[in-house]
């Protein structure tokens, strides 16, 4: 019996007059990879941004390891153990690769732990070690995605929120990134994944929720959803 890690209940989020998320409930157990799939504008990114505190919830609750997150500022949520890899990677372009990684460890005080994590991150992404003194803005898209993942690893978070890790990348690089995502998960980090490529998401995650205009329409095990007619028609193009 694994423990409940993230429990989102009746979450609603709005931007001014527009309600982007209209009462969404889902959960994630420790060690799982769970995917949120859905079309553009369904509210997926908004949900992740609200979990990590970049947006304020209008109502509902977000419990992480028994702790309520909706009232916490974003920088406290990182300390609670959530690492968010945002849409479009958002690396700091005019800082070096190493400075970006060091910012990932911003909340860590002990330099021995920072060093240890840096070495582990370089092991996972040897490419980043080669380019450590290069400006992040000069990296290729795939390398920037690796840096964004590496930076999240440096925070030491127990749950990683991944927003469209495949966006704008060549298929062969997407394959690479998803292999690494699975490795990160096997090493003990739980993952909440958003992905436009529903097939890829369902292959990676054990469970998934389908989002439609701010509401969850379908949920279930990935293997079942891969066979579900509605999912196949709307998201798998089959």
């Amino acid at each position, binding site marked *: 019996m694994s423990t409940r890690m993230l429990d989102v209940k009746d979450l609603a989020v709005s931007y001014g007059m527009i309600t982007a998320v209209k009462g969404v409930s889902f959960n994630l157990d420790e060690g799982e990879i769970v995917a949120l799939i859905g079309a553009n504008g369904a509210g997926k990114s908004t949900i992740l941004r609200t979990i990590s505190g970049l947006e304020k919830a209008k109502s509902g609750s977000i419990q992480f390891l028994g702790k309520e997150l909706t009232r916490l500022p974003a920088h406290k949520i990182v300390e609670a153990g959530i690492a968010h890899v945002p849409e479009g990677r958002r690396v700091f372009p005019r800082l070096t690769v190493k400075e970006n990684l060091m910012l990932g460890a*911003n909340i860590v005080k002990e330099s021995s732990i920072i060093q240890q994590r840096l070495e582990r991150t370089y092991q996972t992404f040897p490419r980043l070690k080669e380019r450590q003194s290069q400006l992040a803005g000069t990296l290729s898209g795939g390398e920037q995605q690796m840096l964004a993942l590496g*930076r999240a690893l440096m925070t030491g978070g127990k749950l990683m929120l991944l927003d469209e890790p495949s966006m704008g990348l060549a298929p062969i690089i997407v394959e690479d990134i998803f292999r690494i995502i699975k490795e990160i998960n096997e090493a003990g980090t739980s993952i909440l994944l958003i992905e436009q490529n529903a097939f890829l998401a369902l292959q990676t995650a054990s469970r998934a929720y389908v989002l439609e205009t701010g509401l969850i329409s379908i949920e279930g095990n990935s293997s079942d959803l891969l066979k579900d007619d509605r999912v196949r028609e709307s998201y798998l193009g089959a």
Partner: protein
Amino acid sequence: MSTLMQFLVYGLQLGSVYALLAIGYTMVYGIVGMINFAHGDFLMIGALSTFFLSQAFSSFAVNGTYSGLIVALIIFVAMVGTGLIGVSVEAIAYKPLRNRPKMSALITAVGVSMFLENFPRALPFIGPSPRSFPMLFPAKRFQIQGVMISTTQIIMIVLSLVFMFILYNVVNRTKIGRQMRACSMDKDAAQLMGININRVISITFFVGAALAAASGIFYASIYPQVDVYMGGWLGTKSFIAAVIGGIGDIRGAMLGGFIMGITEILATSVNSNLGYAIGFVILILILLFKPAGIMGKLTIDKV
């Protein structure tokens, strides 16, 4: 030749005033993304508070001059005090508007500037009339190769270079500096790294206002008269200096400040009215030929 060198000394002296003030404009713009039009008034607060502090310490003065230790203490207290006023201004006036359209913060800044000039003016013990600034630095003069230089000038130029050197290294080599640079590039991503951006912004305002105070003390040491409006015109010129150097870039603000100071002195030596205009001439030339400023780059970041 020695005349030119003499002008260069005056130019560096005035330039250090502009450079210290321009740093605050550029740091706030870089990190918060707004032009703090009240920044020049921090210079006035620094100079005025130094005036009152030196009065409070007047019993320590011997024949109107203060010992180095007392002067250092006065400058330190004035800088820290002005820094804290800068932090309060941000917390009270700008923070509530952070997620509003840029124009709101801009107009608020103009309002803050009016308040900072007119509130002290209304206070009976400050009032509108100019005060003569005390001699803080020894006024010894000596001549090198026909160039007259005073200890005040040396202290000013050296101290401002020291402040800039420290600031540059803090921004580029320390953890808080790295947090500042991260905030200037991407505030959302910075928060996701666990950075408390409110704290970073407060520190930015503190540093900017404290350096403005130093700038005000230096300016009042050259032109020993202080009043509540002194920050306005100086603020405008330093803002121009920051734009010339490339707004958002600290080295640019320093360079822009010195360029403004030196050209202003040179132009004034030709015609005293030209001194006021030259800054704008340079600004127009820069905006025409290098719109991002000397150090600024129009970068396209890959996404």
